[in-house]
């Protein structure tokens, strides 16, 4: 039976793992390959590197850390942030990434998804969708919730409906969707279950939940109630608030199928 994946996300900038509230108060949290290897040992099912600077002049630095990571952490690695063309995607895969996540560039030019899927296979193409609730006011509580796509790390609102974009991305060739709630990201209020459910019931590809995880119960809810196939988090793992083994133990106790890594308990 296919396991539910637990995926730590490492924000990287300038060749280092950074932490903070996405773009502000960044502090150095270590060497990406070293942290990646530690997470692999502790039971991570997969890793995501998110290049939050996504600056063209830092591409070589990013490719270097991808390569150093691929040589020592033998679990799948997805790299996202600033990939604009299929040539750039090729460079990232060649450096040792197994998948590339596309976000802003795919919204600007959806055909990029199709080009990348044709060239590298859809399993290598993750489309990251950052979504924000359209009507958060209490008086509209009874209306069906709706979300819109935001890009450039939440700075630009596109007006595009998130569920429709998810379906379109899959039609074009996305092999997986990484769905982040911008309302919940960094808040610790839990994943946006309604958003996850709205998307997961409409697509056949795996959905990775992101944004808002505070504790093991949130991971359980994202899967059981939100229909997510995998759950991603950053700060709760970096700050060692909840180790991966603890999250997985809680998921297993709730009846979810997870991969338990014996050496992680030691």
């Amino acid at each position, binding site marked *: 039976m296919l396991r539910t994946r637990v995926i730590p996300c490492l924000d990287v900038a300038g060749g280092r793992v950074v932490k903070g509230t996405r773009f502000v108060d960044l502090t150095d949290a270590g060497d990406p390959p070293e942290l990646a290897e530690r997470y692999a040992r502790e039971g991570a099912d997969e890793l995501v590197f998110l290049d939050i600077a996504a600056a063209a002049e830092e591409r070589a630095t990013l490719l270097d850390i991808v390569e150093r990571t691929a040589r020592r952490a033998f679990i*799948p690695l997805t790299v996202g942030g600033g990939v604009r063309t299929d040539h750039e995607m090729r460079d990232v895969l060649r450096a*040792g990434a*197994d998948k590339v996540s596309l976000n802003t560039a795919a919204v600007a030019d959806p055909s990029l998804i199709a080009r990348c899927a044709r060239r590298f296979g859809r399993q290598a193409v993750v489309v990251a969708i950052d979504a924000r609730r359209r009507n958060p006011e209490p008086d509209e509580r009874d209306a069906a919730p709706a979300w819109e796509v935001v890009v450039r790390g939440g700075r630009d609102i596109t007006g595009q409906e998130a569920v429709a974009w998810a379906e379109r991305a899959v039609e074009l060739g996305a092999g997986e969707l990484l769905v982040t709630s911008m309302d919940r990201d960094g808040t610790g209020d839990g994943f946006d279950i309604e958003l996850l459910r709205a998307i997961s019931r409409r697509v056949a590809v795996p959905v990775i939940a992101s944004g808002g995880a505070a504790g093991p119960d949130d991971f359980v809810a994202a899967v059981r109630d939100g229909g997510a196939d995998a759950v991603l988090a950053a700060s709760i793992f970096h700050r060692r608030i909840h180790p991966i083994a603890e999250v997985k133990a809680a998921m297993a106790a709730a009846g979810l199928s997870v991969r338990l890594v014996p050496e992680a308990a030691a």
Partner: protein
Amino acid sequence: MSARIAIVDHGAGNLVSIEGALRRVGADVVVATDAAALAGADGVVMPGVGTAGPAMERLGRHGLVQPLRAWLAADRPYLGICLGLQLLFDASDEDGAATLGAISGRTVGLEGAPTVPHIGWNQVELARPHPLFSGIADGVDQYFVHSFAGAPTDPSVVLAHTTHGRRFVSAVARGRVLGVQSHPEMSGADGLRLLANFVALVDSGWTPDRSPVTGPSPVVGRHRAASRAGSVS
């Protein structure tokens, strides 16, 4: 260990992980983009993601199809990973491409799967013991990422099954020609062990017919790391 393993480059992205993993378990690794690179090898690893058609096309352009067919016909050690397993069959339903034809059967779509692609960790249930899985528990979790799987016509080549909706063949063995649908290079310690087993089999000059069950004990070490930057074109 000194077994020289040629990783065949058919242009499908990431070779760094498989190269790094094979080096980690002590193999002497060369990335093969032409027939000459195969000539000096003791074993072949065919990695892979992507689709059969473009991979066969690229193998053809680099003059590798006939040497690989000869390699397989001579029952020389081969480990196909994911697409590298699927290429062993006659043809692929994914794009209709004719493949290497070493094991009769076709590559077919994952029918009845709840999600496609099948992405993530799933269990490999052994149909019979084999030295490739020496020291690895039956039902081991391995990482999968694929939408198609091999359907051999001869059940005796089936080494393992995995279930995603329906059961599919997740490992095959015919003499020294082996294939796994999962990615051992992305499957942590047990994946490294599987690769170490293959390298040890190649190194020992293993004869499948005489000792089909007991394999050499796997050795995981850091041998010859970080030489050869990898002639990835």
